[in-house]
C-alpha cells in the first residue's frame, strides 16, 4: 500500500503506532525500572517515526534495520559501512560539517552530498513531527 496516496495522514499513522506502543509498554513494564521504560519509549518513538514514512527514505530503513538486527535501538545512527567513494561536491570547509551530519542522520554514511542533504531535510521534518506528537500526548495525558 502506497501511503502517500492513502487518505490517512502521516501524523495519524505515527500516532497510531506510537500510542499502540505506549499502551504495550505500559502493560509490560509494571515492574521495570524508570530507565528501562524510558529507553523503550524512546525506541518506540524512533520506530513509529520510521514506520510513518513508509520506507521511502534511507534513514527510516536504517532505523528499522537496526531495530530488527539488535532487537532495540541502542544507537540512534546506524552507520552502514558501504565501500563507496563519496563524491566530494561541497566546498572546502564544508566536509567536516557534512561528516558530522552523516553521523547524525541514520543510514547516510555512504551518501553523496546531494542525497545527504535530501535525507537530512526529510529526517528533520519527521523528527519535528514526532516531537510535536509526543508533546501533544504529554499535554493531554498530564491534564487528564
Amino acid at each position: 500500500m502506497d501511503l502517500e496516496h492513502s487518505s490517512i495522514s502521516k501524523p495519524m499513522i505515527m500516532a497510531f503506532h506510537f500510542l499502540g506502543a505506549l499502551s504495550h509498554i505500559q502493560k509490560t513494564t509494571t515492574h521495570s525500572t524508570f530507565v528501562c521504560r524510558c529507553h523503550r519509549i524512546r525506541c518506540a518513538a524512533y520506530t513509529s517515526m520510521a514506520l510513518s514514512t513508509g520506507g521511502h527514505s534511507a534513514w527510516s530503513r536504517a532505523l528499522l534495520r537496526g531495530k530488527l538486527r539488535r532487537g532495540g535501538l541502542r544507537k540512534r545512527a546506524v552507520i552502514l559501512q558501504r565501500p563507496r567513494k563519496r563524491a566530494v561536491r561541497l566546498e572546502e570547509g564544508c566536509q567536516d560539517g557534512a561528516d558530522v551530519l552523516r553521523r547524525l542522520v541514520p543510514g547516510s554514511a555512504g551518501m553523496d552530498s546531494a542525497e545527504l542533504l535530501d535525507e537530512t531535510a526529510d529526517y528533520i521534518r519527521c523528527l519535528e513531527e514526532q516531537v510535536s506528537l509526543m508533546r501533544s500526548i504529554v499535554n493531554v495525558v498530564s491534564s487528564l
Partner: protein
Amino acid sequence: MSARRSRSRQAGAARITDEQIDDLMSKLQAILPEARLGRNDRVSAAKVLQETCSYIRSLHREMDDLSERLSELLSTTEMSSAQAAVVRSLLM
C-alpha cells in the same frame, strides 16, 4: 535497494550540479527555524551545515526529554483510556 531514485548512486561527481547543491542547501535553510539563521541568502554552506547538526542534536535531546516525561506519566496514567483523549485532540 529501491530503484525509485532517478539519481544513480554509481554516477560520477559530474551528474550532481552545483545548482542542485544550492537548491538543497536553500531547502535545508528553509527548514531550520528562523531564529537560527534568519532568511539571509548569504549564509554560507558551512554555517547551514553547522546549524543543521546543532538543530538535529537539539531535536534528539528533546526526544529524550519527552521520553522521560512520558515514562513518568505512564507510571501514573492508564494509557488505554487516555488514547481516546489523545486521538480526539489530534483530530481537531
